[in-house]
């Protein structure tokens, strides 16, 4: 009963009083359509299989960045351990296919379910902690996972990892075929974005927003802060696991390195680069983070130097990420002044 009530109110208020929200929806929808367009153009112009596969991998990793941002942009914690779920997805796919002889899609589904269960368990334990404590403890758990993956040779293939998979397919779709791989990951990414946009507009999205901004005040107006945080964590896990699984057709190997914090840091940088407060910010970040160095043929060391500098500059001058830079430029040159509404 009350649910309907809430929904109605949301809709009405959004429609009647909060025009700037619907403006945001329109803007995000247009971004989504643009990116779809870019995706399609990329898919057709770049015929080099390596570039197309890399684009597919970028979509998979963007999914991971979205997962990170459910926590960072959603409830305001820094999830340094998020690669735990990424690795779970990757190993889930690899073990399912390589050891259990299951099809890729079935293996991935199992991994997704496991990731939610694992997130529930870890969340109950770690989410009592906030700030640096949460980050560090969740990071510590990835260390445990890495040790386990290295030593459980029978299951994980030990330090060498798992490789030499049968052709990876989802039903009739061959993920070893670069254009198909790209189309599948890009579509999943787009669906994920639309889901997250809807989530943000939902009462749960508002609850997450209140928790991120001011947990004490949120609690005092009746938000179950612990539950919101736990739900956000459980929701973020399958996104990361799916990302990990979808990365396998690109990497063709899964080693304990997937549990490295460097993986999470890459995802975090994408989020910060693109902007944490916009749903597709992390996707923009992922595209810039992976594709530009590739297109420019950058040396990995130069890449790190360049990105570190860019991140520092962005954090200093535009904490809202590239999106904020874009809005500022548009306001400057487009003569628009809807100042505080750019979020």
């Amino acid at each position, binding site marked *: *009963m*009350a*649910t*309907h*009530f*809430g*929904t*109605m*109110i949301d*809709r*009405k*208020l959004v429609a*009647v*009083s*909060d*025009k*700037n929200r619907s403006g945001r929806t329109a803007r995000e929808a247009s971004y989504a359509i643009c990116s779809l367009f870019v995706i399609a153009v990329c898919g057709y112009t770049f015929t080099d299989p390596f570039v197309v596969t890399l684009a597919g991998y970028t979509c998979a990793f963007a999914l991971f960045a979205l997962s990170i941002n459910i926590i960072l942009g959603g409830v305001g914690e820094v999830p340094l351990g998020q690669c735990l779920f990424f690795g779970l997805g990757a190993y889930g796919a690899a073990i399912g296919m390589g050891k259990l002889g299951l099809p890729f899609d079935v293996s991935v589904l199992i991994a997704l379910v496991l990731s939610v269960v694992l997130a529930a368990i870890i969340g109950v334990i770690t989410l009592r902690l906030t700030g640096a404590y949460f980050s560090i403890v969740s990071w510590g758990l990835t260390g445990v996972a890495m040790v386990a993956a290295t030593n459980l040779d029978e299951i994980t293939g030990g330090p060498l990892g798992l490789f030499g998979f049968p052709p990876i397919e989802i039903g009739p779709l061959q993920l070893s075929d670069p254009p198909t791989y790209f189309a599948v990951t890009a579509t999943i990414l787009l669906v994920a974005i639309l889901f997250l946009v809807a989530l943000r507009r*939902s*009462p*749960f999205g*508002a*609850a997450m*927003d*209140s928790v991120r*901004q*001011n947990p*004490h*005040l*949120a*609690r*005092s*107006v*009746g*938000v*179950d*802060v*612990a539950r919101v945080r736990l739900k956000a964590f459980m929701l973020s896990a399958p996104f990361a696991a799916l990302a990990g699984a979808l990365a396998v057709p690109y990497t063709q190997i899964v080693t304990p390195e997937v549990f490295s914090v460097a993986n999470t840091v890459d995802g975090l940088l994408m989020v910060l680069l693109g902007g944490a407060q916009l749903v597709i910010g992390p996707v923009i970040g992922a595209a810039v983070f992976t594709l530009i160095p590739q297109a420019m043929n950058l040396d990995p060391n130069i890449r790190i130097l360049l990105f570190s500098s860019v991140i520092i500059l962005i954090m200093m001058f535009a904490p809202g990420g590239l999106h904020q830079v874009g809005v500022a430029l548009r306001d400057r040159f487009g003569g628009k002044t809807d100042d*505080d*509404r750019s*979020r």
Partner: protein
Amino acid sequence: MTIAVAERPAVSARDVVKRYGGVTALNGVSLDVQEGEIFGIIGPNGAGKSTLFDILCGITVPTSGSIRIMGSEIAGMPPHHIARSGVARTFQRTAVFAESTVLENLLFGRHASFHHGVLGRIFGSKTFVGDQQAFQARVEEVLKLIGLDGERHRKAGVLAYGVQRRLAVGIALMTDPKIMFLDEPAAGMNGRETADFIALIRAIAPGRTILIVEHDMSVIRQLCGRALVVVDGMPVVVDAPHQVLSHPEVVTAYLGADDDE
């Protein structure tokens, strides 16, 4: 249910002690606030007033002592339950959701009172138009009460400090609380704003019990029937504001405290 009002205080605390490691923030505070009262709590900086509020509304668990709200013991109740049972609180420091608009600030509380089912969220039902209108009317009413009708789309963080304080009261009002805890609600307000604020509290007071921590004595004098003075975590006196202010211990405590400010 049939117990006489006077026998069941709205807020009742017994021997509340709170220690943080070696610091004793509260050292045996008891109080009874009757339904419908506007009750002041005053004391120098660091006296333990905010800590007392946190404990009374269940955010902080006391080291010892017991709290009853509307007659029920709140030990073990999660804070959001207490909030949903009609207790609202404003905060001394971060009083609003700074990144959201005024309107969004008012909506946060309401979301929490709904049970969120995924299906219901996606397919809104048409049978609750009445409730919906009542809620919209509530939003409008609160916006008018706090005088932010014209500022609904401004971000809370860009509002002047005194205006944010009024918004904080508005956020608390959205849950239509029976008991309100206001922690230094008039801090940072100029004379005019304070006068408006006093009028606001008078307007919302009927049917509610209000506890106010405030350094501005004129606010306490104008609003409160009784006030409790806390010094160094200990209750000194409870009485009418003009009485407590002339209490010798209070005078000493305040003369001491004035030096810090």
